[in-house]
């Protein structure tokens, strides 16, 4: 980055709420179902029908506002954003332009210098998603099909102030925002799966100046990494323009993830926003506000601090265990069953989560419940199985409903810890490997690992490695 200029970045983030029903009717909010399965006269906007605003969507949206530290407006209203496109068959999108749901929020992120930085949120408003267009050909004729499953899915749009100064901050903001929203259960916030869409407004200005210059909007980034790359690319592209004396013009560009660059997009028609006469004003009562506040869970930051204090975790471990609500709840459910917090952390992070990812399962629906994992870890902690065997047992827990104890029994994973058995084993290994014994005695520490490995192998992995080491040391020194 040139020393003379700095980037000024603001984000516009659309988040699909995971309410059970759509925003203005009772249709299931499942955009991915068989096309046009989840439709009714309201979301098809047939004449004579009147939208019915969903309380569930309001509450999911309001929780988003609260965890983003916004001021919830007691009174808000819908407007009609007028534009004509086949994905919007009534000619306008219901959105909140004039009276948004919430204003003036913020999120603290770790800034590029490592210190916390507060980024402001200008406003959050609700709107309905539009239908999905599918372009195909029928013979040689191109045809466009409209799938209304997504029409009426509730969205919130989060508009930040232009407080970010680089791609790292933008990426960190989106990560933090995603964590917060997932915590209250309002959305999965997946850029990859389309439940979150992030557009960035990027402009440049001389460092030290307060002015806001002409911005360029960039769209179509479908991962946080792409967001960072697109902002970095756009920053250097604008820098190049400025250095060659070209003016920056207000326009929209699309990120091309293949070519890793932004390309200009056909100008989008910006329609007016007219107050909607059919959806009643949205009022947030004291009662609702108190109810919403009481439903807020313990959020990641305080939870991290508590995990450090209560369980003695290192900061990094505590953050790992608290960044997702499901993980934190699973973790505590395991710890509650008298498993040491560090063992629980280690097994969750290094074994459970990677295994779930591989199997495309989640902590919510996996057959490896906290109870089952805790039983396994209890055996590990009591030296009844060793770590290698425990990993084998865990793999089997995913595919069977047997208890860990039964699996250990059935497959003979029980750890051999008896002194006489192990001493016999060690003596055999020492006798079979005289050169390694000599090497160790002449100062090669590696030889010990070799001998432990031989002993473990001889026990078919069932020996307690700690005990083996102790016996070996006693014999060798």
């Amino acid at each position: 980055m040139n020393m003379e200029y700095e980037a000024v970045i603001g984000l516009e983030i659309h988040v699909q709420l995971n309410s059970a029903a759509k925003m203005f009717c009772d249709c299931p909010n499942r955009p991915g179902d068989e096309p046009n399965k989840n439709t009714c006269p309201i979301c098809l906007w047939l004449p004579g029908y009147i939208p019915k605003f969903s309380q569930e969507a309001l509450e999911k949206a309001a929780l988003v506002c609260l965890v983003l530290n916004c001021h919830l407006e007691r009174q808000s209203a819908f407007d009609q954003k007028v534009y004509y496109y086949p994905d919007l068959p009534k000619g306008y999108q219901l959105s909140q332009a004039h009276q948004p749901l919430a204003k003036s929020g913020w999120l603290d992120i770790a800034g590029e210098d490592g210190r916390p930085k507060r980024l402001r949120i200008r406003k959050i408003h609700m709107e309905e998603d539009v239908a999905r267009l599918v372009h195909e050909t029928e013979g040689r004729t191109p045809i466009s099909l409209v799938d209304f499953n997504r029409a009426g899915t509730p969205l919130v749009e989060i508009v930040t102030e232009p407080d970010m100064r680089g791609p790292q901050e933008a990426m960190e903001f989106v990560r933090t925002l995603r964590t917060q929203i997932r915590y209250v259960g309002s959305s999965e916030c997946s850029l990859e799966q389309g439940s979150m869409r992030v557009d960035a407004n990027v402009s440049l200005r001389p460092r030290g100046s307060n002015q806001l210059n002409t911005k360029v909007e960039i769209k179509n980034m479908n991962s946080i990494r792409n967001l960072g790359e697109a902002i970095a690319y756009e920053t250097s592209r604008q820098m190049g323009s400025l250095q060659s004396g070209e003016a920056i013009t207000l326009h929209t560009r699309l990120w091309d993830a293949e070519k890793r660059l932004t390309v200009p997009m056909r100008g989008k028609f910006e329609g007016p926003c007219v107050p909607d006469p059919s959806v009643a004003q949205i009022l947030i009562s004291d009662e609702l506000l108190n109810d919403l506040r009481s439903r807020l869970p313990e959020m990641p930051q305080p939870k991290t601090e508590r995990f450090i204090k209560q369980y003695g975790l290192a900061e990094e471990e505590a953050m790992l265990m608290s960044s997702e609500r499901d993980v934190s709840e699973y973790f505590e459910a395991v710890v509650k069953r008298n498993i040491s917090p560090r063992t629980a952390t280690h097994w969750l992070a290094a074994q459970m989560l990677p295994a779930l990812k591989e199997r495309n399962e989640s902590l919510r629906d996996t057959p490896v419940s906290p109870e089952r994992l805790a039983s396994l870890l209890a055996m590990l902690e009591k030296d009844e199985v060793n770590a290698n065997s425990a990993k084998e047992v865990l793999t089997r827990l995913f595919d069977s409903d047997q208890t860990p104890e039964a699996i250990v029994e059935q497959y003979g994973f029980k750890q051999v810890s008896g002194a006489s058995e192990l001493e016999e084993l060690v003596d055999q290994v020492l006798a079979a490997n005289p050169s390694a014994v000599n090497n160790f005695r002449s100062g090669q520490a590696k030889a010990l690992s070799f001998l432990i490995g031989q002993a473990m192998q001889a026990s078919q992995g069932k020996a307690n490695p700690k005990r083996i080491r102790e016996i070996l040391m006693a014999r060798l020194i």
Partner: protein
Amino acid sequence: MQSDIFVYMDSSSPAILESGPLTGKRVAVQPNMSVRGWPTEAGSVALRGFVALEDATVVERLRQAGAAIAGSVRMSELGFGLVGDTGARALAEGQADIVLMTDVMGEARVAAAAIGTFGFKPSYGIVSRFGLIGLVPSMESFGILANSPEEIAAVMRVIAGRDDRDFSMPECKTPDFSQVRENQEPMRGIGVVRECVEALDPAESRAFREALCRMEEAGLKVEELCLGDFDLFRTVHNVIGAVEASSSSGKYDGVRYGHRTAVARDWNEMYLRSRAESFGLLLKTYLFQGAYFQFENYAAFEKACALRARLLEETAVLFKKVDALAFPAIRQSFPPSKANSIQEIYEACALTLCANVTGQPSIVVPGFVLAEEGGLGLQIAGPHLSDARLLSFAFRLTNSAKGVR
């Protein structure tokens, strides 16, 4: 089945209740009011072939009260203006006992005045709009034409009240329509807006003043009041009405129902041509006006919204001084059935549209304002939710001043 009055008739309409409050009454509706299985084209090519999937709440309630839905009359395109509308004729020629007409700027009341009968627009928000294919959602409501205030009250008693399918209805107490003949607090002070009277031509003014005298003879206190912004009602209605019409007609794309153009290169052209071929010139002009305010002059629309709020306040001030306001319903010089341009339509409805702007109830009583070429209709507008008192007033006035034509 069709006739020159009905675009669709159903002789087999089943009577659900043999002794309901409306048993034996034949109700005519307009084809923008949903009756399950009936063609519901709202007088527009844009809805050609559209068949209602369900009964409008109003239709459902009328049937449950024993009324027979006799047919749907011919109507102007999407209910804008009265050219081609046969609702009033259905009543005048005895083809129906009750006619429901969409009242966007007074059409139901104007049509009633033109044939010398009773026409009523209820308070905004007390009758469900579910199933009404409307044009200007914040101003329109079901209007009722009938030969007596009691019949209107009987209909209101059946159709008014909350409906869990019209989510736009505000929380309010539905007026009690059961005692229209008695028990309603009588109206005594009637206001007349000076600016309205001054705008009438001499013959109209004379007829209106005579009617006022007859009201005074009937024991009412008539008081002249000032409403300096009276002229603005029409402008406010035109600007907001056109904008809402433009928005609410956006859904007529010819893709899922209605007329679709035969040939088009792409979807954009298909929309443009389908809509160009669907709407008539009059409606197109109105929608175009709305688009102008939406896209080119939003500030004027915002101003109109602010003026609407001001007119509501000013009207509320008048209702602190009097129980109701009296106006003629129609102008002799602007016959509604011949109003073919936006300007003529607004002229013809200039005196009734005030109640649409404010959402207040208004009733037209025949036989009082009599000009040489026919009755102009006495329009009485009351404050919000005074519907039952207004109907009671119309009943008493009609019965206390016997001997009128």
